[in-house]
Structures are given as C-alpha cells and as structure tokens.
C-alpha cells in the first residue's frame, strides 16, 4: 500500500537532527519552522500593538504627550498597519499555521521541500529585521501610510524620505515576497502531492482548504506588490517616472516627468484586496475546525464550505478598485466594482450561516478556543455588515477616510482574524507543547479582548458618521466635531490600553504553561483530524513513527449515533469503531441517516 503515497512518506526526512543548531535553529522540520514563524510574527505583532497604543494616547489626550509629534504619529500609523497586515497576520496564518498543520493534517512526514521551507523562514526573518532597522535610521521609518501612495510616499516632507526609511520599507517588502513565494510553493505542492492513504482533497480539514486557497491567492497577488514596490524603489533611487508625475515640491521642480500615481493604486490594490482574503480564508478554515470540534457536530455543509472558499478566492481578484472610489475613477467603473464586491457577500454569508448551523443542536463545550471562535462569528458579522455600506459607491463617498472605515476594517480583518488566531493557538497549544494552558486566564483573556475590542471599535462607527477624519494627528477645534466626540476618543483610548495590557495575560499564559501546565495528553479535545492521532505529543521529527496513518473518512465525524465515544478519528478503520451495546454495526453517514 505504501507505493501509493511515496511523496508523503519521504524517508529522507526520517533522520533525526541531533545537534541543537540543526534541531532548533537551522531546522528543516516543519513544526520547528512553524514555531519560528509564529514566534517572530507574534514578536513584531507586539511592537505593532505598542505603536497602536501610542496612536491612541495622542488621539485620546491631544497636547499631552511631548514625545509624539505629527511626524511620529504618522510613522506609527504606517508601521502599525504594515506590520499587522503583512508581517503578523500573513506570516502567522500561512507561515505559522500553514507550516504546522498542512503536513500533520494531511498525514505527511514533512513539507515536500524542507530545505526551501527553512530558507523561507530565514528570508522572512531578514525582511523583519530590515523593517525594524528603519526605526533606528536617520529620519526614522516611513510615514507614507501603509498603502504607500505616491507621490507623497517618496517626496521630501513625508517622514522617512530624508533618510532610508522608505527604501528599507520597500526592500523589506521585496524580501518578504521572496520568502513567501518559497513557502507558498511548498504549501501548494504539499497539499497537492503529499497526502497520505485515503486523504482525498474532499476529505481535507477546512483548515487546509483555507490555507491552500489563501496560498494560491498570495502567490498570484504578491507579484503585484512586488512590481509596485520595485518600480517605486526605482522612482525613488534612480529617478525613473513610473508613478511620479511632473511636479514641483517644496519650491523645486522635480526630475520626474509624467508617471501615474493612479497606476500604483491599481497595482497596490490588485495585491491589497486579495490580501484581505489571504488573511481571512485561513481564518475561515481554522475557525470551522475549532467550531466543529467543540460543538461535537460535523461542520454544516462541508462541500458548500469548500466551494465558498474557492469562490471567494476567485472573486477577490476582481473587486480591488472598491478601495479607490474617491480616486476620481469613472462612475460606471465604480459600479462594476460595487457589483462584484456585493457578490462576495453571498459565499461569505453561506459560510456564516454554516458556522451558526454547525452550532445549532450541537453539544457545545464552552472551552477557551470555542469562546474565541464564537467571538469571531460576532465580530465578523459586524465587520461584514459595515462592508456592505462601504462597498456601495454613493454610501462610501461621504464615509471615505473617516473613522467608519477604520472601524470597519479593524472589525473585519483586525479583530476577527485575531480572534481566530487566539482560538487556534489555544486549540492547538496542547498538541504543539504537550501541555494544557491555564483555562481561567484564557477565559479572562477572552472576555477582556472580546468586550474590550467592542468598546474600542463600536464608538468609532459613530465618530465616522460625525465625519471625524482618519490619519489626523489632532482634530483641533472644528464645528462638526462636538466635545462629546473628544470625550469618546478618550474612552476609546482607555479601552485600547486595557485590551493591550490584557494581552500580557495571553503571553504569560502560553509561556508559563510550558513549565507549569498539566500534561495535555495526545487528544484533549477528542478531535477526529489526523494531527491529534500522532503517536507522540508533541509530534516527533517525521510525525508518524514507522507507518503513515490511513484515512477512512472525512475530518468531521462527531456525534455519530450509536458510537461509544461520540467521535470517530479519521484513521480508525470502520471495523474497529467501538459501538454502544445494542447499537448495531458502525455505518458511514449517508444522506439516508440524516433525519
């Protein structure tokens, strides 16, 4: 039987690395690389969290903190956005969870190209170091906004253009894209070719489906960022005019001739919108698995979930210009993009209904991962609904560049994916470390984060309706912004600082549980997917001992009538399933068995 899966069963990865260096530093083991990716991503994420606290301090208490000037403020905004979207979320979902889960959930020993995988992490680390270096150079990091729109991104007067700030930003992005391409080729090839016996594509857990489709999106969307970053770098360094129009800046006529800033916007958002789904699709997948496991019920509409992931992935490439309604585009053009944008709501709504229906009549266990997963459903619906406002051209025009937009995208691609990240980290922590985390701390962490983020972002919608503009260092005295809005801003800041500080509980929990946590056992959540069936916990190098597992069914066999344990792991042969006395023989669920 082995002959059917030689690629999953690579024997050359079976040589255990022995030295500390090959085991933990220059490791080619997908699990170690996943932890390296995850640790680095969380580290830069914490930096970005501190940056957001600084922004909030300025907004909530203007004229109070002398160490924040307008230039610093816009630098914090820029670096916060860029780090969170690319260096935290993309890296943690795909580099972290992609690396950890793909081989384990598919029953492979490792990724198909372990060396390339290692290289991918070290390039990622290099890109992070280049990015962080920009904090320490003359003029500091770039303050161009995370969208880096030319011409202001590279013109004098924008922070980071006197020194190498903007150059380091662009180079870091180029290196990140190379790092991701190495990893991405690995993930796609592993999913296509390194599945174990019986693991058909339609038996893969939705986590793998989400990561797989997101990786394909990323492979084809990141080139757009690569192209735009490279051309902007040349505009800055060598005086070309790809994006830079003929202009006079600070009293001097520039050497640029007649480039098109709008061209940059198109290229950037051709990457930027798929990027939203590069983050969201893995989150959709991971949350599906967490919900199904802790509700003790098969995911509702598995095939529909897969189709929706694929459909959303495809549609995400034809909606980019809804970020550009105010760029002066032809209204008919805007209408087309509004139309495609609203169509995406259909597969997305299917997914939301299916999550809710998975919970319906389930035997819900209110574990910490489940709390975060259910929190995600709330925040995601919330952020999705405001997306319908902004997707319509006429509604978007007055709301554009206000705090309504800030509230929308933070709910939909800030808080929601982070909820899933916490759910996933708590869910897989026992497998990754072999220890159980502190449940009480986890629950406090959830309620503080969930309620706290609502306290931050709900009022921001109201500020947006008032017309409070985003990106402003200080609002000054204006007629349309009442004093109550200023008071609200102070409250938002208090909530933000509270949520930020409460994340220390999470960091403390995952570190101290490494030492003090109770042994978790191999399958604490009584889960059916393959990663919980490894012979060792944490899984050893090569994952599966002597023989690869054989898969007999899908990854959602929970709550099966008549079965003693209420779940049947994917790798248990039908004849070995233990039944309740008198329940008869185990049969697969066919449509006839649903009442």
């Amino acid at each position, binding site marked *: 039987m082995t002959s059917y899966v030689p690629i999953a069963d690579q024997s050359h990865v079976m040589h255990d690395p022995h030295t500390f260096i090959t085991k933990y530093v220059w490791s080619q083991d997908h699990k170690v690389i996943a932890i390296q990716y995850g640790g680095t991503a969380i580290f830069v994420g914490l930096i970005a969290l501190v940056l957001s606290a600084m922004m909030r301090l300025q907004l909530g208490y203007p004229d109070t903190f002398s160490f924040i000037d307008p230039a610093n403020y816009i630098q914090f905004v820029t670096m916060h956005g860029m780090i969170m979207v690319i260096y935290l979320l993309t890296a943690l979902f795909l580099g972290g969870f992609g690396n950890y889960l793909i081989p384990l959930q598919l029953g492979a020993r490792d990724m198909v190209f372990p060396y390339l995988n290692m290289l991918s992490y070290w390039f990622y680390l290099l890109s992070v170091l280049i990015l962080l270096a920009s904090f320490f150079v003359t003029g500091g990091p770039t303050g161009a906004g995370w969208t880096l729109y030319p011409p202001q991104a590279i013109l004098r007067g924008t922070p980071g253009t006197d020194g190498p700030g903007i150059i380091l930003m662009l180079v870091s992005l180029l290196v990140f894209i190379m790092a991701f391409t190495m990893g991405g080729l690995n993930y796609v090839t592993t999913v296509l*070719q390194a599945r174990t016996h019986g693991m058909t594509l339609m038996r893969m857990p939705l986590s793998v489906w989400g990561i797989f489709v997101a990786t394909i999106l990323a492979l084809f969307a990141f080139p*757009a960022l690569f192209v735009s970053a490279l051309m902007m770098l040349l505009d800055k360094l060598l005086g*070309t*005019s*790809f994006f830079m129009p003929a202009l006079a800046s600070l009293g001097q006529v520039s050497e640029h001739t*007649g480039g098109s800033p709008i061209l940059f916007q198109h290229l950037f958002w051709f990457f930027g919108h798929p990027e939203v789904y590069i983050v969201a699709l893995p989150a959709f997948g991971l949350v599906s698995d967490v919900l199904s496991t802790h509700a003790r019920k098969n995911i509702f509409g598995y*095939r529909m979930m897969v189709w929706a992931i694929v459909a959303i992935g495809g549609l995400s490439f034809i909606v980019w210009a809804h970020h550009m309604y105010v760029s002066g585009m032809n209204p008919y053009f805007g209408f087309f993009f509004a139309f495609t944008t609203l169509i995406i709501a259909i597969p997305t709504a299917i997914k939301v209904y299916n999550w809710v229906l998975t919970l319906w009549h389930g035997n819900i266990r209110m574990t910490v991962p489940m709390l975060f997963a259910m929190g995600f459903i709330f925040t995601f619906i919330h952020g999705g609904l405001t997306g319908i406002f902004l997707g319509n051209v006429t509604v978007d025009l007055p709301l554009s560049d206000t705090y309504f937009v800030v509230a929308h995208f933070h709910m939909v691609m800030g808080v929601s994916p982070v909820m899933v990240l916490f759910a996933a980290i708590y869910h897989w922590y026992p497998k990754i470390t072999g220890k159980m985390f502190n449940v009480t701390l986890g629950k406090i962490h959830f309620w503080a984060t969930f309620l706290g983020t609502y306290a931050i972002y709900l009022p921001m919608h109201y500020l947006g309706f008032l017309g409070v503009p985003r990106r402003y260092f200080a609002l000054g005295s204006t007629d349309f912004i009442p004093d109550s809005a200023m008071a609200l801003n102070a409250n938002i800041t208090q909530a933000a600082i509270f949520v930020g500080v409460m994340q220390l509980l999470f960091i403390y929990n995952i570190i101290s549980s490494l030492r003090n946590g109770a042994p978790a056992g191999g399958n604490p959540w009584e889960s059916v997917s393959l990663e919980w069936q490894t012979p060792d916990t944490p899984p050893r190098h090569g994952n599966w001992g002597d023989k690869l597992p054989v898969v007999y*069914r899908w990854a959602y066999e929970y709550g099966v009538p008549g079965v003693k344990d209420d779940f049947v792991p994917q790798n248990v042969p039908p004849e070995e399933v233990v039944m309740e006395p008198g329940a008869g023989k185990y049969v697969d669920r066919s449509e006839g068995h649903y009442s």
Partner: protein
Amino acid sequence: MNPFRLLTEKPWLSTPQTVGGMTVEVSQASLVPPQKVALRVFLGVVGVLFGLFFTAYFIRMGLADWRPMPEPQQLWFNTLLLFLGSITLQWTSHVVRRGETGLVKIGLLLGAIFTFGFVFGQVSVWQQMTAEGYYLSSNPANSFFYVLTGLHALHILGGLWVWTRASVRVMAGAKPEVVRLSVGLCATYWHFLLLVWLAVFALISYT
C-alpha cells in the same frame, strides 16, 4: 482529475477504491515529481509578475510623456541565442532519457554557452543604449526596457544555478539518470523564459 467530480464528492461517505484486485484507500495524490508541480506553479507566479509589468507598460504608454525608444538590432541575435539554448536543453533532456552520458555533457555545455551568450548579449545592448545616452531614467520606455530585460536576465541566472548543480554532478561522473529530472525542469524553464522574452521583445518593438 475531473474538478467537477472532485467538488461533488461526498466526503462523509467512505469510498474505498479497488486497485489491482485489492481494496485500498487512495489519496488521489498524483505521482508527478513534486519539483515538476512546484515549477509549474512557479512559472504561474513569474507569468503573473511579467503580466503585471506588461499591463503597467500599456497604461504608462498612454500618458503624455511617452517617447518611443530605438530598437537595437542586436536583440534579434540575442533572441536567436536564447532560442538555441532552449532547443539544446530540450535535446539534452531527450538524450538524458536515453542515458547517453557523452551527449548529455555536450548538451549541457552548449546550452550554457548559448544562454551565457544571451545574457552577455543583453549586457552589450545595455552598453550600446547607455553609450547613445538612453539611461534608465531618460524616458519611461527606457525605464521599462531596463527593468524588464534586467528581471528576465535575473530569472535566467536563477535557472543557470539549477543547470550548474546538474552539470557538476554529470561532470563528476554521475549517471544521466540522476540529473534527468533537473535537466527536464531546466528545459521547461528555458522554454518559458523564451516565451517571456518574446513577449518582452514584442512589447519593446511596439513602442
């Protein structure tokens, strides 16, 4: 694999398949070497990269300051060299399968000569251009010319790295069987880069 059948599969039903009289659980994972699959995906990525540059080129062309640039005749000669390199590697991947070590060595060597010839040819075109005063930032068409040819040459040099590894092994006396896969991959990659080059060349001539 039929995608429609794949997507309508009912995963909650066990569907053991009979292979060679034995009932086994199959994964449908194909036995194509993973390197081949990864290369195809990579070619897709590179294709998108150049495709986006082409799109940017067309949009930029429509703006007021666009001026056509001269088309050096040497580019035709360079194209011929890359074409020969591509043909040679295809022939090499053919003789590798027949196991003829001597011919494989000749093929790898010739392929490298043609390819390096192409890269040096491109560099000499750059020198001609700069000698005539057409620098990177002189006009937008030139900017695209340097960026596109430079990126294309970088991709070729990346391919030559795989070529070098294969050649070193053959020269050190390895059986052709060992490098069969890498030579095949090189051939595919060279054909692809030839196509990209033809597109770039057409675009440059279209100014």
